[in-house]
């Protein structure tokens, strides 16, 4: 069947099989392999993408469900080569280790900051609790979100490194 939707700010029109998962559409048909599959069950959050700005597990969504809606993947986060403040903050604070969970965590972070530009530590924890990370122990991810928040709000960024 034919599927029209907006992907990373561009209109896409593509033929898909019924029953195809969004993650397979992205990875296999559109070659956007930045979205990762960790569990296929909505437990780990590695496959998180934004659907109309809200984080969803692309392994739990059928491709047909995004018809006429807007999908953002990690490839769509930087605009014209300019990294999103969250991407910069993840790099600078050391919030990335193996990096497999990073795309999903970044999209959850962007969704949080879009909705709540100055989240508390507790709000950050809740917003990211659907994204498992086995390497970092989350601490530096929290610091990265806080740094990105300060940058977005134009606040002082002293003492933001380590």
């Amino acid at each position, binding site marked *: 069947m034919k599927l029209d939707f907006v992907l990373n700010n561009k209109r896409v029109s593509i033929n898909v099989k019924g029953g195809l998962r969004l993650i397979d559409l992205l990875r296999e048909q559109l070659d956007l392999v930045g*979205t990762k599959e960790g*569990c296929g069950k909505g437990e780990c959050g590695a496959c998180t993408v934004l659907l109309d700005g809200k984080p969803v597990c692309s392994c739990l969504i059928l491709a047909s469900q995004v018809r006429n809606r807007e999908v953002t993947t990690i490839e769509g986060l930087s605009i014209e080569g300019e990294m999103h403040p969250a991407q910069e903050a*993840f*790099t600078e604070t050391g919030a990335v280790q*193996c990096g*497999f969970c990073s795309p999903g965590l970044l999209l959850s972070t962007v969704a949080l900051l879009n909705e709540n530009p100055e989240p508390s530590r507790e709000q950050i924890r809740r917003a990211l609790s659907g994204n498992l990370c*086995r390497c970092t*122990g*989350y601490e530096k991810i929290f610091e990265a979100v806080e740094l990105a928040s300060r940058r977005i709000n134009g606040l002082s960024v002293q003492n933001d490194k380590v």
Partner: protein
Amino acid sequence: MILRCMKHDSKHKIVGSSVPRVDAFDKVSGRAKYAADYNAKGQLYGMVCYASHPHAKILNIDTGKAAKLPGVRAVLTHEDIPGEKSFGSVIPHQMALCSDKVRYSGDVVAIVAAESIEVAEQAIELIDVDYRQLDVVSDPKVALKDGAILIHDENNLCAYHKVRRGNIDEGFEKSDVILERDYSTSKIEHSYIEPEAVLAEPGENGGITITGSVQNLYSIRRAVARVLGLSLNRVRIIQATLGGSFGGKDETMSALCCRAGLLALATGKPVKMVNTREMSMRESYKRHSYQIHYKVGSTKCGILQAIESEIYADAGAYAAMSPFVTWRSAVHATGPYSIPNVKTDVYAAYTNNCYTGAMRGFGSPQICFAIESLIDELAEELNLDPLELRLKNILKDNSITATGQGLKHKVSLKEVLDNVTEKMGFVDKWKQNREQKRDTAFKRGIGISCSYRGISLGAEGTDAAGVIISIQTDGSVILSTGLIEMGQGAATTISMIVSEKLGITPDRIRFLSADTSRSPDSGPTVASRTTFMAGNAALRGCHELLERIKPVAAELLRCPEQDLLFENNSVYAPNKTSEGDRKIPFSELADKCFQKGISLFAHGWYKSPPTTWNEENGQGDAYFTYVYGANLAEVEVDCITGNVRVLKFISSHDPGQIVNLSGALGQVYGGVIMGIGYAMLENYAESEGNPLVANFDEYLLPTACDIPEIETTLIHNPDELGPLGAKSLGEPACEIAAPAIANAVFNATGMRIRHLPLTLERVKLGKELVRIDSRGSVKARGG
């Protein structure tokens, strides 16, 4: 995050500071290519047919129907293997495809390559295997009894190690207090978020190229060469960006690479195989569960006289790394204490459970939990506080370890213990907590733990590594080594060490992924050995290069070689040349060297200092040096539900010299949280050889909501053997979290829990509740 006591050694330009990871940009932009992201034109998809029973004789395998399914290109069994049917670094008995019997539920009897995953899955359903079921052995102690059902041809003993020091009977005779306790730990899944994946492509000259999520490329290459019947130079293993490993992508990947390789050679096509999480959980090896018995003797004032221990590890169906894992347990079994009389026996036994192998800690997390719980129990018995008893017995400079090794370096155990206890006022708080009212619903507790850890492989075997440094004519550098980046930060750390020596900034250094055909066999990336081994090798390579380029620089600057300074991508001789502070860009120097025909390529090779081991009495210099660490945990126990919240964690370690501060802290945080998972949540439960968990819905990992406040203190204590003084950190950070938490729970509730994890039931009721087969779990769902 609070960091204190950090003494930055100003004599280094970059080493010791915080540098963003060299691979971070690719990873945050989604460009990093992990194994499952690779595809090749015309590729087929591989799938495995798992054993239907954890222990059974294979009577017949009928692949006829599967082979006839349209879209299927190959169905292979053990009969189609051109080389040996099994592999293994220590004992080569792990079956690539099972022939006579299956030994655990993750064993594979046949493999399929097809034009799509769907067809491959259908074909697997069409394979008929006749089995005769055998009795299942699921308890390692039972496995070692006379008359036990055999998993392999000989008895079920996979490994045995002993340590004998002094006279154990005399030790207990001299003791006023003797305590005997039993502890057990659960089986742990590495839970790297990236499931295993490979792409195998038939190469030139009948060889094979495999790109995959591999941790130890060279042991995997040996397995593939053996099974495919190829020489090592025709098997090329390339490491894709690795989505976590923690010791886990070794034998599991050997098996997957062998299978994909067999299918690729049989079909002449590229074959891609990607495990689902369920497949990964079912098949991949785990951290061993241990059953541990301790007997400890002490004088009434708290001087340890003797420790006797008997330890059983569940090796599961295959040996994998069990012989080495349990050896490390034997060496460390008595903890970081001076004990004159020691008797340690460690057994690893084959069972029909999922096999076990290397995982962060490598035989230490089990031991640390038990010995550090035991020391607290002894303190309680002696009416001492836990810190006091530790301080009376810990290893110090020149102490002799349980294996008879004199410690010649600076032993920092007291310092790390002071670091975690002083600021919190540990002893006062520990005493106050004991006064909490019995009927209080929420009780606070505080607990400590400490450890020593031998770094690198020690007497396990040959320990050497190589790093290739290639300066380009524009002054940039390409670095490659057989040790790998797996998320731990090796690419950045090794780049920083090279940067320090050559004065080239890390952004001008490119660290390549490992490739068995292009980088030297440097052994496995394990045992927290990468910074130490590759760092030392890199230093040698840098030294060699500097010897060659310095004369050219001195000539250009008209100054003696000893006045040269390499810094910020340039070289100069401050105030020493007639031209003042004239700086030559490194690019100019490199190009000049190239024009003169001077080699800008060096291979630094480093072999570790010697270690010794006597199998007969378990005595020797087991490791060439050690690191030390201590933890403090503060918890709040909900006495109504049994829920334990870790409120605060203090961690202090002695990594020698920090290389990348940001990376070092990341190792501590990640290690502590993995340790909290071990303590509180994780359990790869099995019943009669069948796994009871299949995915992260039931195998629980710590989430962002489970994280306490973590305070870290890293000690600066350069080791004369380490590269610029650096030792190791990744594993020590992980091994002592669980006992600190168990000790804190005791401090809160007065109840000692000797079995991990500290589930609600164990904390509330003091016992485990058994799951009924019909409820939840994979069995009920037919998975």
